[in-house]
Structures are given as C-alpha cells and as structure tokens.
C-alpha cells in the first residue's frame, strides 16, 4: 500500500510539473528585457577639440597657426584603435571590451560604456592601428557591427592596404577671402604607422589623477583629442595629403603621429 501511494504521489507531481512547464511555453513570447545597464564600469567619451573648442564639421574654418596661418574646414574625422584599455595603479591593464573601437567624431560615435572591475586606474592605453595579422586579415570575419567590419566603417582599403586607423579629411584655404578650397586628406595606415599611446589621467600640465571605478557606478571619463596639436607646425600648402605610403607622404604622416606625442595631443582629465 505504501509503495502504491508513493507511485501515485510521484506521478501527480510529475504531471503537475509538465503542465506548468507546458503552459508556460504556450504563453506569449515573454518580452525580452532591455540589456541590463552596466552597473560597474566606465563611460568613455571622446571629444575632438581645436584649441579647447569642440571641432565642428561642414561649418566654419579653424585657424591653423603654422608659419603662415591656414584655415581648415573639417569634413570627416574617424579613427580605429585596438588594445583600448585602462591601466591600474600597479601597472596591470584591463582591456575595454575586446579592445577594438571605431570612433567617428563627425557621426558623434564617441561614447562607449564598458564594464570594469572596481579599482583605481591611472592611464588610458591604446594603439592606433592593430597587429599586422589583424590589419591584413580577412575583414569579413567580423560581425556587421564590429569596429573592424570594413563595410560598417569604410576604414578598410581592401587587400592592398589593410585598415585606415585615422582618417581626417577636409578643405583648407590660405586666407579666408580665398575663393576656392584645396583638399586636405590624412589617412594613417600600414603596419609602419602603428603607434601605441599611454595617456596618464590628469589635465595636461596638471597633477596626475586617478579614475575610480566603484561598485554600482558608471564613472564618466572624458578623452580629449586636441586636433590642433596634430597639425602643429604643419604647413598644408607644402603637403596636405598623406596616405602613409611613398617617401614624402610617409614622412608627413610620421610627423603628424609624432606630433601627437610631442605636443601632448591627448588628455584624460581626472573625472
């Protein structure tokens, strides 16, 4: 008798469970909740500045203080970085996402949220460009929204050149009264032009600082790119185009990239 009761009891429980599971699957598709907001991490905001003011596109001219002033109108400014990471106080690096990012100032694709472990970070580190194997790898391997998808970014030169990791295009004039624009096009590419940058936290010329990431908080971090420093001392009329290849153009691009370090073009103010 006891054995029979147990069998019936187990049977009822099993049927009830099947009914519950079955009925649940019958119901309307549950509405998928929006992706959970990142609770602990950083929000990285990139800004392109010209002498402290936001760079604008398709409007106005920015005065370049070369030997003789030149006036620049920006049409496009994008870049692809790899190994984007934050550096802890002890020197260990924490990769942001998979480390690749496409930043496009014209399109305002400049804000990115990353989950991060709690802690204090002293620098932002990244590479302009990417490892050679990736640079010359198959761009079709990346998903449609990945920063390395060439069709998404337009920053891939096909099999011949790999990725463009910084593209700045625009016009310039020798004087604001000049009738016609001359073209300006700086495209950084090729393995030779790959550069690594470590930007310490703190205003340029100011005290060093830290980014504190604490539980349940998204710490906002600004990354300022002072574009006037990229072009510091560069006379566009002597060379306003570089695709990073050929003796003259490669030298010009190398100089621009050196300017980034020499004149401290990057800044991460203490949050």
């Amino acid at each position: 008798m006891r054995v029979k009761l147990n069998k019936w009891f187990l049977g009822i429980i099993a049927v009830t469970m099947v009914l519950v599971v079955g009925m649940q699957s019958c119901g309307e598709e549950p509405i998928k909740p929006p992706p959970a907001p990142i609770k602990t991490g950083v929000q990285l905001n990139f800004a392109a500045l010209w002498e402290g003011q936001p760079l604008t596109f398709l409007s106005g001219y920015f005065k370049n203080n070369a030997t003789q002033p030149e006036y620049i109108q920006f049409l496009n400014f994008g870049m692809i970085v790899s190994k984007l990471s934050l550096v802890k106080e002890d020197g260990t690096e924490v990769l942001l996402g998979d480390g690749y990012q496409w930043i496009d100032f014209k399109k305002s694709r400049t804000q990115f949220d990353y989950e991060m472990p709690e802690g204090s970070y002293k620098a932002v580190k990244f590479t302009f460009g990417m490892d050679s194997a990736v640079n010359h790898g198959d761009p079709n391997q990346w998903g449609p929204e990945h920063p390395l998808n060439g069709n998404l970014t337009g920053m891939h030169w096909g099999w011949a050149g790999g990725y463009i990791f910084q593209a700045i295009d625009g016009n310039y004039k020798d004087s604001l009264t000049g009738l016609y624009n001359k073209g300006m096009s700086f495209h950084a590419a090729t393995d030779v032009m790959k550069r690594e940058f470590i930007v310490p936290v703190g205003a340029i010329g100011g005290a060093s600082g830290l980014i504190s990431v604490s539980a349940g908080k998204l710490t906002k971090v600004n990354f300022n790119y002072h574009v006037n420093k990229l072009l510091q001392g560069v006379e566009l009329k002597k060379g306003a185009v570089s695709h990073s290849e050929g003796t003259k153009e490669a030298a010009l691009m190398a100089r621009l990239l050196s300017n980034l370090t020499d004149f401290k073009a990057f800044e991460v103010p203490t949050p």
Partner: protein
Amino acid sequence: MKTRIWLGFVLVLVFSACRKDPKDPLINQGGTKYVPTVVDPTTIFPVSKFGLPNLPSDNSFTEEGIYLGRMLFYDPILSFDSSVSCGSCHRQQNAFSDPVIYSNGIYGLKTGRNSSALINLAYSKKFFWDARQTTLRELVFEPIQAHNEMAMTLPLLSKRLAKAKRYVEYFDKAFGSEPNVFNMSKALEQFLLSIVSQNSLFNDFFPGRFSLLNDEQKRGALLYNGLVDFDGVTGLTTGTDCFHCHGGALAQQNNPDMGGITNNGLDGSFSDRGFGAITNNPLDRGLFKTPTLLNVAVTGPYMHDGRFTTLDQVIDHYSDNMNFQSPTISPMLTAHSNKQLLLSKQQKADLKAYLLTMTDTVFIKNPAYSNPFKK
C-alpha cells in the same frame, strides 16, 4: 508503466494545444496553417567575399517573402495605369539599371535622375542618388507614388492587390495576412536585399589573386588601387586612386564621410543639389551617393544625370576634365595640388580593362532575380 503512458499523453495534449494558439501569426483566419520556409542569410550572401550585412531584425528572409517581392517587383499593376513595374526601369540585363538617361514613367513622363543599379543593396545604408532613404521598405513607396514614375495611390494599390488571387495566396503564405501595402514593402525589401552580385572576375581576384588577371587588367588594378600612386622621389601622383570611393570587394564606399556621398568634380555650379537638397547644408551641394562599380560595363549611362554614355567618357572625366573649381569637390580629388591626372592612352585602356572584370554575367541572367511572369 501506467504513469509513463499517462505522462506521455499529457505531454502530447499540452504541446498540441500550444500549436493551436490563435495568437500565432502563422495561422490565418480560415484555421489553416502555412509555415513559410525561412532562408538562412548565409545562403544568400557570400560571407567569405563580402561578410554578412546588417539585416533588418523584423523581416527575416523566407522563400515565400522573397518570391512575393519578386512578383511585386515585376508587376505593372503597382503603377496607376498598369503600364510600368519596378523592373521596367531596373532591368536585370543592365544590372537592374536603365540604359536610357532618364527612365520612362507612366504616360511617357520622365524621371528626374538616371535610374540607379540595384546591386548588393543589403550592404548599403543610404539609398537614391541623393542618399535620402535609409531603408528599402520605405524607399519602395517613393517610385510607386511618384507622379512621374508609377503614380499610384496606396488605397488603390491595396484594393488591387486584394483583388488579385495570386497575391491573396502569396501574402497569406509569406506573412499570414491579406494583401496590404505594409507587407508589400516588406516583401519588396526581402527581394531587393536578396539581389547579390558576386561572380565577376573582379570578385574572384579581389583578395589580390593577380594570377587571374591578364597584363592589361593587372596594370589597371594597380592604377585603380593606388599601388602605383606614389612616386617616392617626386611625391607626385601617377595613379588614379579609384579605390578610395569604389574600394573593397563591393567596389563601393558605404561610409558617407569616407567617399560614400561625394562630389566627383562634374560641375562648377549645381542645377541638381543632390544630397545638399536633403540636408540644406551648402557644403553638401552637388554631392551624390557613390555607386558600386560592380557590373559597371552594363550600367551606363553614367552619373546621376546620365551625362556619360561610355566608360571611356567616364575615364576621360577623371583623367582630364575634373572641375577643381567645383565648390564642394571631394578633398580626395583635390588633395594632389588640383592637377589633372592626364593618364596616357595605355593607362586609360588598362583601367578600362580592369573595370570590365567587374561584370557578373551570372548575375545579369540569374533566374532567381528574373521576371516570374515570363515563363
């Protein structure tokens, strides 16, 4: 044992009840059920050549949806007087472009611009010469309603579709609905997205397989891709740099700011403002969407106004006749000191030979894209 049998019975009951849920969109009102055949995008798109495009998340490909879109594309009842279909101005043998400068709408009315080729649209983000549309399902309503194209009204079109037996059947199969213009646009979107050209010699060569090309084509490839562009001693340009705006395996730049929407130095002033008419920004005047060069040999006449009838004329423009005084000309064209390229006769022939490798003869005869009403 009895418990197991009972359990099995309950399971069958529960799950068969699920299938009869009246909220299931695949069940039509008559209670019959037709499940359309889902098509895996990787069977449509050549992932190894182009990668996967970013597809609409609410309009999955089905065999029935694509076929319905194809029927609609070629059906003249979409025009007011039932004389013109989408396929009238986008002819498959011309890579879905029109060999005339301005296409013929109803009553002999002409379009305002040359009809664009419809190639690999799934990889594009902007449509029309002036880049005013961002989705194909919205795009299709424009020619259907344009007074000089199909001049149709949507209420009338709904009625016509509902009266046509073939559409009652196919809307039901594809969407589980009666014919309506909303699902019409989704079906057309599926068909347009499914049009893929990938079989040209260019697409086989593209990762740099120079052994596939003859000498003339190889020299053209070097010119086109800027590989002879830079003279290390003088720093002068000797190549053509076509790849900047027509780069990659798609022979098309899709980032508007990297050459995807551009002024290619045709005019000093603009009778057609193009993208500038959309944004109303003076610096966008005379900018137009950069077309793919795939199948360029069969997509003439060229440019938004069809001003060039031959590829030779196009090459002459870029080589010898660039208007550097065009106020919004692309900086990529003016950056080399505003000098004409002045290609030699041989260089022009080489470049043309390379452009001719982009013709996909399989594509322009592919029965999957042909008029289903012509048996």
